């Protein structure tokens, strides 16, 4: 059944031509993400999880099957979907507040309203004091928070996260994971997170989608009990982590959670 905020992915496939050969990056992907749900996708490198995200956001327009949002087939980017990439991708010549305001360039809101939204979203990610700074003056974690503010400032229905904390140190990553969980919950956004960090997937996700490579396909979908993800040190957390890791299959090296204990 199609709800009015549901993201429906129906038998989606994607092929690339690499040096004259056709490589099947994704095959037979079926996934439905309910409004307000947080879905984590884990898989080894090359399993097509980032490709799937690029399809959903609209950067790749050419694919088999259907991706529906609010019952409509997606074709190209629109402002109801936002993405945070692994690199912050801030514009180095724009100040922090101008970078966040990029998200509102297409908005028809009055200028005062836009300024207020930018300020609110900088406060949301805890960077209100750094509005006038340039990206090069920020640490990696701060830059990634600006990128999150830029993605959220439009109030998108769906937030896509492509290994957003992969390039950060363990402490910053743990801190930002908690921040992200708080923000997504408070804004009631639907989120799809791609990661190869199993702990991160459990900590943030309502469900975990395990993908296998060549061709990229869904191997299993595991629900996460809210009580389990509360405590990273609990036995239930460790057990779920083992389940996900074994679901990923041996022979596909995946970091078993890179967070230092």
């Amino acid at each position, binding site marked *: 059944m199609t709800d009015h905020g549901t993201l429906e992915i129906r038998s989606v496939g994607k092929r690339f031509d690499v040096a004259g050969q056709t490589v099947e990056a994704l095959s037979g992907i079926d996934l439905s993400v309910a409004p307000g749900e947080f879905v984590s996708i884990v898989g080894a490198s090359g399993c097509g999880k980032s490709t799937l995200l690029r399809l959903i956001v609209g950067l790749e327009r050419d694919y088999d099957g259907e991706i529906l949002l609010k019952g409509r087939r997606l074709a190209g980017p629109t402002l109801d979907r936002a993405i945070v990439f692994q690199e912050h*991708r801030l514009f180095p010549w*724009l100040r922090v507040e101008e970078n966040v305001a990029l998200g509102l360039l297409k908005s028809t809101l009055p200028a005062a309203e836009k300024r207020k939204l930018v300020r609110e979203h900088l406060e949301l990610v805890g960077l209100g004091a750094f509005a006038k*700074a*340039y990206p*090069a003056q920020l*640490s990696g974690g*701060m830059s990634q928070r600006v990128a999150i503010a830029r993605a959220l400032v439009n109030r998108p229905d769906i937030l896509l996260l492509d290994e957003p904390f992969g390039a950060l140190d363990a402490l910053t990553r743990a801190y930002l994971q908690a921040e992200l969980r708080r923000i997504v919950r408070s804004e009631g956004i639907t989120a799809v997170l791609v990661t190869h960090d199993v702990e991160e997937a459990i900590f943030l996700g309502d469900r975990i989608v395990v993908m296998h490579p060549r061709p990229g396909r869904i191997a299993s979908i595991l629900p996460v009990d809210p009580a389990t993800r509360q405590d990273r040190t609990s036995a239930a957390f460790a057990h779920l982590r083992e389940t996900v890791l074994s679901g990923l299959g041996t022979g596909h090296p995946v970091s078993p959670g890179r967070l230092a204990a």
Partner: protein
Amino acid sequence: MSAVTVIPSVRGTDAAAMPLRRRWNGLILPAALILLWEGASQSGLVDARLLPSLGAVAARGWSELAEGRLALDIASSLGRDLAGFAIGSVFGILAGLALGLSRTLDRYVGPTFNAVKQIAVFAWIPLISVWFGVGEAAKVAFIALAAFTPVVVNTWAGARSVPRDLGEVADVLTLSRWQRLIRLEIPSALPSIFVGLQLGLIYSWLATVGAEYFMTVGPGIGGLMTEGREHFHMDVVILGVLLLGGIGLGLNRLAGLLETSVLRWKRF
């Protein structure tokens, strides 16, 4: 909270940050040359008519200034230099952006431009003289052409290498063509554009002297030097050389200052 640290701005290349002693190192060679020059002309080893003393050049400069001729010459040269540079760089930036941002133009016009730019700029003088006459317009056109080439080449290179990653951000945010140009493509190409403008400034100043030398005689530093040579007034010629060097240096300093203030974000 390790996520909150601000890296202080570092301006290592700033002259003000350099130790005083090292800042003067660059002046040793010019000072030695002046001493050598002054020594040679004072000692009588060199004919003072061929190499007048520093004092003679300064006196000539002062008298030319008092007559009001020198100011007119400098103003004429600077005026046509800046007019030509402005025209050449405006067209250069527009052409460079068009070539760098349109794959079609790059394919169809790029190779021709790359061939034409191999022609030495002075080779255009006969053609420009015929097309623009012998007056001021021809000189300005020649100077503009000299500035145009380096500005196009560098703007083109800058516009072509807008980071793909940031282009995807613009795609996702569904920026319009115009928003993309203003927020992404021009700022991204700006450091390259400034390299082009700096070169254009040097080329156009050279072309100013060239135009005054090889085209019709009129007011200007080149005219002053031509006249000095014809009357065998070496002090006038040397005065012209010093003025050309000094003004060229000054123009480039100004361009450098403008660049650091526009590209503030690069300083961090």
